[in-house]
């Protein structure tokens, strides 16, 4: 065989073999990977909208997805807003639970972050940070309480706490939360998102 032909034949067959091999592997693992992602999101929804039995995706775009948490009868009891934005180091991805009228926060969960360990990374700490985000009045933009308060009672209903020494991370979380709430309100006004339960499919 001529060398050039041999080169083409060998490379093509290696490519074909590896392609079909990978197609098989991809097919075998695809469902499981999708399931893992879905489970992760569902676990977060149940965490931020307590009482959720099932959930439904209501809206999706880059850096913002809205899920509805439903009770036994299929009524939407709250929104789970999955949003992300830039923190001190890298992207912060979070899930905010609100009631169905978007006026009160239920809970906040940080899904992904790369803030400085020991400082900004405290945004994932429940006692230290996330507990201060429960039951806030979010009908107006939330504000940061500075300097940091030591118990939730010290805050007014529209305030959340700062992390001492990590103001930038706290501000980043705040701006993601306020920004996504505003966006969701706009979507509801424009009729692109509804708090009424919709039929699946």
């Amino acid at each position, binding site marked *: 065989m001529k060398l050039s032909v041999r080169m083409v034949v060998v490379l093509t067959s290696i490519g074909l073999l590896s392609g079909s091999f990978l197609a098989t592997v991809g097919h075998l693992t695809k469902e499981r990977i999708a399931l893992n992602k879905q489970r992760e999101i569902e676990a977060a929804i149940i965490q931020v909208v307590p009482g959720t039995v099932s959930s439904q995706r209501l809206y999706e775009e880059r850096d913002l997805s809205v899920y509805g948490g439903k009770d036994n009868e299929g009524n939407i009891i709250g929104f789970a807003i999955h949003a992300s934005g830039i923190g001190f180091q890298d992207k912060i991805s979070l899930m905010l639970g609100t009631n169905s009228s978007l006026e009160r926060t239920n809970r906040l969960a940080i899904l992904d972050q790369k803030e400085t360990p*020991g400082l900004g990374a405290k945004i994932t700490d429940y006692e230290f940070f996330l507990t201060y985000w429960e039951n806030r009045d979010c009908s107006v933009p939330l504000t940061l309480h500075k300097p940091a308060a030591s118990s939730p009672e010290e805050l007014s209903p529209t305030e959340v706490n700062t992390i001492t020494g990590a103001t930038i991370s706290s501000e980043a979380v705040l701006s993601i939360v306020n920004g996504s709430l505003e966006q969701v309100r706009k979507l509801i006004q424009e009729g692109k998102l509804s708090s009424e339960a919709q039929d699946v499919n």
Partner: protein
Amino acid sequence: MTDNAFILQSSPHFRDKDSVPKIMYAVIASLVPAVAASLYFFRLKALALLLCCVAACLVTEALFLWLRRKPLHSLRDGSAVITGLLLAMTLPPSLSLELAIIGAVMAIAIGKQVFGGLGYNIFNPALVGRAFLQTAFPVAMTTWIPPVALKIQTATYATPLANLRFEDAIAKGTLTPLKDLFIGNVGGCLGETSSFALILGGLYLLSRRVIDWRIPLGILLSLTAFTGVFWLANPEKYASPLFHILAGGLLIGAFFMATDLITSPITPLGTWIYALGIGLVIGLIRLFGGFAEGVMYSILFMNAFVPLLNRYTRPRILGEGGKA
């Protein structure tokens, strides 16, 4: 392959044995007012930190000299004492002693000895130690206590710069008065409280011609210009250049850290570029960076350029290259 296969050429290599201790002891003498001020404002805490840092630096230096089979008498050149003193001056008074010792060990070990000891280090050893501590223990390194002489008692006490950067001090009218900054009646690291004591020591060093006058002057000039522009444009948001000069670690950095003979350029033009660069980076960090204070990082940053500056600002030898 022999051990001397390549030699790392960096800043001035002092071969004149007599002059090193002389310079070093002048630097130690110039630190006396600032050390005295820190002892007055922070009492026993300051004393303990100073002693621990100096002792830990000396022990580490001795250990490395022994490991490298070098004569121990070069401990007497005083450079390890200065590193210890300067490191202690950049630490928060409330820092626990074991952390200060870790910082001192790192300053000598990875800041100086791994490069080959005195004369071969690229970065200011005291600042390397502080940078290590800052990254390793960010909470402990940003927890401040008010000076003993200050009558305010609060749980958390921000430095004047942190107050300005993160608490909107100008809008709230809580900006630290310049008079307090000058005397030193403010929170901060041991050696960054009293501007007066630092200026006294700095003037002594200048009068003895131990340090290059271009460095403090260049830093002050570029910081004044940079912060001045923003202050004139919007005094509601930005503090005055005088505030920036007196607050934080600027004066100790400009007089004692940036002027380190080993880690600063040797040519006059290189020195100007180095000093102006430090002032500019400090301004950038303080106004727009993620930290309230930027003296340490800006000096370390410009230290990295020193070999390059020495190389490209070398005066041309008569008759060498170029057009006539």
